[in-house]
């Protein structure tokens, strides 16, 4: 896609976040979509492109009364929405549609109106070669590479615990965060053991919620009320559905490919970045992300975080909403990372980074299975 030619012009989360037992999954999509339409002052009839994951685009378009001429149902896990942004920008560039709605809604905690999408039946590759060994969901899959990383680079349990501590400091500034009470390294290391070396405070929340984005051409954005957030660079990739077959347990190939594409497309350098979101389903994700995106040398990100570089007042504000560890995590968190980038670039974030001009939202899908990276700016850079 052409940098700065497409903008996010509408953005909103569901009215409530956390525990929402009175809304089904499709209604969470709709609640977020209606909020985003209100944000930009458009109606469903103004939308001609729909992208979503978790639900198929058909369900969302029908439910909202939209007749799209472009749809994207790319579903590669929690970063799907980064891929939707990328695909939507390309589609708008190509003239396939003008105004795209991207929705997310997930009843992750209350499980209302949820279809079973755990694609690990007993004849699939994960079903034959991983599930029989007792992997009980993300806490015992996503975490498997970390001991290898710790041995290779000397990352300590205390440094890994600092990821949670720092993100809680950001969450304390955010009234919508699920957990706001300060925590210490000792609190993290004394919390309940989930899957050694991971304890409860190093694992994401499980909540209900949703979010929606509306994108259109930069030209059309001029006539709309919100400050445009330009799409400046984009990347995506996938590696493997099997965590055991990840090429190198100390780095994600999908992260590297996606990040490099986004930087190349945008032409910016790391020093230009004012604000960063790295999808943190578990505490090691920001460490892998910082290194694979090129912000830290190999093996250096644990110390970088422990030295408070990503904390409030640090050089590189990271996961400023509190992240999946403290803000919210419905299951496919990528949408909330994008929402926080948009808020920062509009200047409306709860923990606002002063004069933020360039933000990156970097997502993971599955267990290091997929990745999407979006570089955004509130100026045409």
């Amino acid at each position, binding site marked *: 896609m052409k940098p700065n030619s497409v903008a996010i012009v509408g953005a909103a989360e569901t009215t409530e976040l956390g525990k929402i037992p009175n809304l089904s999954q499709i209604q969470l999509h709709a609640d977020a979509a209606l909020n985003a339409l209100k944000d930009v002052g458009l109606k469903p009839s103004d939308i001609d492109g729909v992208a979503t994951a978790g639900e198929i685009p058909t369900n969302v378009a029908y439910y909202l009364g939209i007749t799209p001429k472009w749809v994207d149902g790319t579903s590669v896990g929690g970063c799907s929405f980064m891929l939707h942004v990328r695909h939507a920008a390309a589609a708008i560039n190509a003239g396939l549609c003008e105004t795209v709605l991207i929705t997310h809604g997930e009843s992750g905690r209350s499980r209302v109106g949820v279809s079973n999408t755990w694609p690990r039946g007993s004849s699939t590759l994960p079903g034959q070669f991983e599930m029989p*060994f007792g992997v009980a969901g993300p806490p015992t899959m996503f*975490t498997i590479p*970390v001991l290898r990383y710790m041995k290779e680079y000397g990352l300590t349990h205390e440094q890994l615990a600092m990821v949670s501590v720092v993100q809680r400091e950001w969450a304390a500034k955010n009234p919508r965060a699920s957990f706001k009470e300060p925590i210490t390294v000792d609190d993290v290391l004394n919390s309940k053991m989930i*899957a050694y070396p*991971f304890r409860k405070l190093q694992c994401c929340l499980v909540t209900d919620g949703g979010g929606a984005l509306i994108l259109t051409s930069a030209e059309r954005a001029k006539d709309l009320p919100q400050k445009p957030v330009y799409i400046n660079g984009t990347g995506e990739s996938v590696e493997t559905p099997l*965590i055991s077959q990840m090429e190198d347990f100390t780095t994600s190939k999908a992260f590297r490919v996606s990040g490099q594409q986004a930087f190349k497309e945008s032409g910016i350098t790391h020093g230009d970045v004012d604000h960063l979101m790295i999808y943190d389903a578990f505490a090691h994700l920001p460490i892998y992300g910082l290194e694979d995106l090129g912000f830290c040398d190999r093996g250096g990100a644990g110390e970088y975080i422990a030295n408070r570089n990503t904390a409030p007042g640090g050089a590189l504000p990271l996961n400023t909403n509190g992240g999946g560890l403290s803000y919210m995590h419905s299951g496919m968190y990528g949408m909330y990372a994008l929402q926080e980038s948009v808020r920062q670039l509009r200047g409306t974030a709860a923990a606002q980074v002063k004069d933020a001009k360039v933000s990156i939202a970097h997502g993971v899908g599955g267990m290091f299975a997929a990745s999407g990276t979006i570089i955004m700016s509130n100026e045409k850079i």
Partner: protein
Amino acid sequence: MAEFKKQVPRPTPETQHFWDGTKKQQLLLQQCDQCQHTYFPPRPFCPKCASTEVTITQASGKATLYSYVINHRPLPGFDNPHSIAVVELEEGPRMMSNIVGCPQTPEALVLDMALDVTFEALTDDINLAQFQPAEA
């Protein structure tokens, strides 16, 4: 969580030979006749060069411990806590497994330790490849 009961693999035409192998206490891999790449999990072509000329080979059963977690959440069909490991076979490929025959603790489970394959009968037809610390 009922959906995470101990799952019994259901072989497909492409993986049947592997499960036939474990039933006979053999750990079978595949090797490309063109580029000699040895790979896992099974498929009837080389994932490196796409050649369909591949030969089934038997692994030595020797491996090292590449990485792992120790699950502390109760899980039907498993003693609690239990290891979930990725082992690196002598021939190169890695696979998920459990480390058995030793305490399920960080002190007993040391990365790069030598392991030997052993087989656990899950059903009459399906044996799982497990690994245990190698005899000194």
